[in-house]
Every structure is written in structure tokens, then in C-alpha cells.
């Protein structure tokens, strides 16, 4: 009984993780701007690898492998957003500007500025 429950939850986690990874990939292809693309990948890839790691943790009988997977999970949660931050900082430093305008700006303001 416990086995079936563990199997179902772990496959659920793995499926959610792969769906998130896929949607991050679609985001890279379809979003119009550098920053929106990076936001899509940064958020969804981190969560996707977290889900996949939790799904793998439920499959393992050994305690020491679970500890190793927990450590990998913590490292991923720490490193992946930092990498997105570094990427965004490098982009701003190199002068890539955003195409989508700031929130709250009306069309009249945009068209009156040359």
C-alpha cells in the first residue's frame, strides 16, 4: 500500500517537473524580450529541478542517497537564481534595454515623447 502511494506521488512530482521544464523551454522561444525570456527560464527551471529531485527522493530506499539529494536540492535553490541574477546584471551592463514598457505609462505619454 505504502509502495503504491510512494510510486504515485513520485511520478506526480516527476511529471510536474518535466511539464515546468517544457514550459520554460517554450517561454525561451516565444517571449519577445531578453528579460522576459530569462525570467521564464530562471523561475521555471529552478522549480522544475526541485520537483524532479523531490520525485527522485521518494523513489529511493537508502537514507544516504536521500541526504545527498537534499544537499543537491539546496545547492540548486541557492545557485540557479544567482545565475539568473548574474545574467541579468551582465545584460544591463552591456546595454540591452527592455522592449516592453514600464507599467502605468499611458499611450498618450508614449506618443507625445519623441
Amino acid at each position, binding site marked *: 500500500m505504502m509502495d503504491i502511494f510512494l510510486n504515485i506521488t513520485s511520478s506526480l512530482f516527476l511529471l510536474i517537473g518535466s511539464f515546468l521544464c517544457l514550459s520554460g523551454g517554450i517561454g525561451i522561444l516565444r517571449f519577445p524580450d531578453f528579460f522576459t525570456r530569462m525570467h521564464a527560464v530562471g523561475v521555471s527551471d529552478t522549480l522544475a529541478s526541485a520537483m524532479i529531485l523531490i520525485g527522485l527522493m521518494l523513489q529511493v530506499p537508502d537514507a544516504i542517497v536521500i541526504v545527498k539529494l537534499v544537499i543537491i536540492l539546496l*545547492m540548486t535553490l541557492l545557485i540557479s537564481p*544567482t545565475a539568473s*541574477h548574474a545574467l541579468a546584471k551582465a545584460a544591463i551592463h552591456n546595454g540591452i534595454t527592455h522592449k516592453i514598457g514600464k507599467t502605468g505609462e499611458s499611450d498618450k505619454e508614449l506618443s507625445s515623447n519623441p
Partner: protein
Amino acid sequence: MKDLFAVIMLTGIYSLLSASFFVAMDAVDVAFTEAAVGAGVSTLLMLVAITITGRSENPARHKPFLALAVVIVTGSLLIYGTLDMPHFGSSLAPIHQHVTPRYINDSMQEIGVPNIVTSVLASYRAFDTFGEVVVIFTAGIGVLALLMVVRRPEDIEKINFLNESMHEKHLILRIVTKTLIPFIMLFALYVQFHGDFGPGGGFQAGVIFAAAIFLYTMVFGMATARRVINQSFIRILAAVGVLLYGSVGVVSMLNGKEFFDYSALASDPVAGQHLGILLIELGVGCTVTAVMVIIFFNFADRKEKSQHNENKGS
């Protein structure tokens, strides 16, 4: 593809893919090394090189048909040559028949180390590994000879000021790096000493340790890194690694056995093997770390010097 930056990034991804391919082929030690070396250090060194040599390529002025013809002829000859080779994965192939069963069957009694790759690398074929360590050391010396920059005191002040002003802004990166670097070094030590029981060993540990030092240098600046890691200490460390490796062999000879026969190091042959493997992996780790750091620091020094000359000239 004209942009060399993109080319180098794709090469890094290619190395990572080949590392995952090695895992699928059951070669876990090799996959570990290829991932650390190919996707990590090699990409980094190429990026540092193109900051000096320029980022884009001149367009080709003629179509390289002769090159294409040579490549196609060579490729078809090679494919013709492989028609006699054993099938993929067959256990009757000649390479599985002669020396390998002896290594696989006798490794546990003679050496007592579960990882057969480590036992072959460090004990049965220790002389080859010695040659490899000397080659890495020679490459380090070669890069030193080509790219070493002698610093004059008045240049140091200007370069330090340039570096300090650039590195105060990156707060998040500094904090995360300060948190992560001890763990990376701890992992490197774990890989170094755990190489007997799982994938790992001296090379991977040396590269990971050097990667921690690269991370520190990139976030905190060359000036701080040069104060933290003394240049002469790193050069002495590289030489000490090779010396440690060689002296293990010489001590074995002095005790009456052959060169690199570790059973002469302790009263019990298996304990002698363990001690010998530990010492030489330590020597390998020291040399690999030191040489990687030497190469990176010299590339970065050269870049600083060329930037400094540009600023002086303009």
C-alpha cells in the same frame, strides 16, 4: 557562425553532452572528469583568451571545397576501416579478453580498493599517471614562460584602483559566493579522498578546487585574489605535487622493490597499496590545482597588462 563567444558556449554545451553520454556508457569517472574539465575549466580559459584576442571572426573569402573533399575522402576511408571491428557492446571483443579479466578479478585481493579505475590508474599503471602529471606541470611552465607579466610597483597601484572600483557593486554575487566557496572546497576534498570507493580521485578534485579559486577571483577581483593566494606559493605547490609523486616511487625502490611497487611502503602489502595510492592522489591533486590556478592568473594578468597599455596609449 562569426561570433566566437557563441562558438565557445556551444563547445561547453557539447562537452557537457558528451559527459552525459559517458555516464550512459557506464564510464562514471571519465564523465566526472569531462564535465569538470571540459564544460568548466576549458570553456573558462577559452573565454579569457578571446577577451584578449577579439570576439569575432573575419568572413571567409573563398569557399573551402578542397577541404570538404579531403574530409569526405578521409571519412569514407575510415568508415571502410571500421567494417571489421567488433559490434557495439559485444563481450567477445578482443579488448575484453586478455589483460582486463586479470585486473577485474585480482584487484580486490592485491590492492583492496573497490574502484577498479582508481586501482589501475594509481597502482597497476602508476608510471603512465606519473607521465601525465609531468605533462600538466610542463604545460603550466609553458604558460608561465609565454604569458608571465613582471609587475612594476607603480603599475600595481593603478591596476588595483581600477579593479576595486569595479567590484563594489555586485552585492548578491559576493554574498552567495562567500557562502558557497567553503562547500565547493569541502566537496573537492571529499572527491579527492573518496576516489577509492566511488568515482573521483586526484584529477577531478584538483579541477574542482581550482574552480572554487576561479569563482573567488572572478567575483572579488584579481588584486584581492593575488593577495589571498601568494604567487610563489602556488608555483611551489605545483612542483611539490610532482615531487611527492616521484618520491613515492623512489622510496619504493630504496626499500628494495621496483619503482612504484607500493607493497614496500608498509609491512602489509595491501596497506602499503592504500598508503601509496593516497600519497600519489594527493600529489596529483596538488599539481592539478596549482597548474590550473597558474594558467588562469597568467591569462588574467596578460589581459590587465594589455588593458593598462591601451589606457596609457589613448
